[in-house]
């Protein structure tokens, strides 16, 4: 449907294309369903589970002792903003799995965070360098309102999949909806296919 009186704002072309329905954002908006979580690095830990078994647990110091990866990437939030050229540092899920001496099971992953947030992604989308636990944004410790001290980052999917205040990844055989997915958000969430809601 054409809105004849709508022409859009004349704006600078993005450095690279952005996904359909998105607009370019210079700032870094904060969107969370609840309060910013207060996470103490001294007691924080992160675990990887396969079904009911915990196969690895890392403290803050242990996470920082693992091989660190720098990532330059674009972010796409389902609330329509995209942010290009962001810089992150953290640990790939591959490095965590290698440290635990295991290979990623096929299937799906449920990410869980402080405050009760959860989100689901296929296993294939967190390995091969696609998923990281990040603790540094733009050279500075990740701020709490952006998910610090440690959040998940899976930048090729809408940002609600990159769970803030991450505490565990659980590998599961069958896909299950997480927090927003239960409210009708897409199970996969590919911004380039504009998979915002269930049947997109």
């Amino acid at each position, binding site marked *: 449907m054409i*809105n004849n009186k709508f*022409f859009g704002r004349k704006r600078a072309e993005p450095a690279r294309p952005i996904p359909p329905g998105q607009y370019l954002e210079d700032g870094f*908006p*904060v969107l969370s369903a*609840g*309060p910013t979580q207060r996470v103490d690095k001294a007691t924080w830990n992160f675990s990887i589970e396969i079904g009911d078994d915990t196969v690895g647990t890392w403290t803050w110091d242990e996470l920082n002792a693992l091989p660190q990866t720098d990532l330059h990437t674009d972010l796409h939030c389902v609330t329509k903003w995209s942010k290009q050229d962001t810089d992150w540092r953290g640990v790939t899920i591959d490095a965590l799995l290698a440290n635990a001496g295991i290979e990623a099971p096929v299937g799906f992953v449920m990410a869980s965070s402080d*405050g*009760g947030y959860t989100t689901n992604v296929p296993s294939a989308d967190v390995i091969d360098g696609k998923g990281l636990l990040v603790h540094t944004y733009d050279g500075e410790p990740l701020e709490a309102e952006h998910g610090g001290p440690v959040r998940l980052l899976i930048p090729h999917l809408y940002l609600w999949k990159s769970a803030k205040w991450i505490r565990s990844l659980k590998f599961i055989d069958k896909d299950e909806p997480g927090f927003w997915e239960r409210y009708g958000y897409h199970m996969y969430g590919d911004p380039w296919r504009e998979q915002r809601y*269930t049947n997109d």
Partner: protein
Amino acid sequence: MNSAATTDWQIATVTSIHVESPRVKLFTLELPVNTPFRAGQHFDVRLTAPDGYKAQRSYSVSSSPEPASNPTSIELAVELISDGEVSSYFHEAVELGDKIELRGPIGGHFTWSPIAAKPVVMIAGGSGIVPIMSMIRHRSAIAEKAPLLVIFSARTEADIIFVTELESLAANDPSFHLIIALTRSDEATSSNRPIRRFCRIDRAMIESALSNLAVLPSRTYICGGSSFVEAIANHLLDLGTPNNSIRTERFGP
């Protein structure tokens, strides 16, 4: 959970336009199909320019979800954002009878229904009152009269959207406690009414208002700009409000 139909695009018709404040206009949109929603949900609007350029934004519903009110129409409140291509289109170009493409309802966490927790506290900054207005109207339309505390922060008297309706509801309902905090005006420049406070919402104001409720709220909703929501949520956590009883919706940067 949203049903399949909720994500289909619909073409709505603008049936009323109301200037609610210098920066906020209310649009009543007639929907082609009955679209049930819950108080607090939003719709996605999609504009398409003649050259094919598209822009999408989300707008919260301010009307009550009551079937009695009109199941096929919703009221959206649009705040004019500087440099906002969609909000400026609504404010400067949209006329009665115009068609608007939208889909929804969307969201489901920032919602309130009478079976939800009670009493309830709702704290809004600026246009953050919009989804909360839907909840307040919903509460007033049904028998539910669990205690409700609303603290609404606006810049000046002229920026208090829905003010007449809010004051009337509060005046006629002893279980509805309303506080309006004005951040950029003082008693000399604003009508001096008992529910006005001339300051930002701070921890002391929240603490005092909470102490006037007979029991602790089992749920608190906060909606507004990011820094507003962040500040209020932190005050509530400092006051011992349980983390999982606080639901937030953050607008804008």
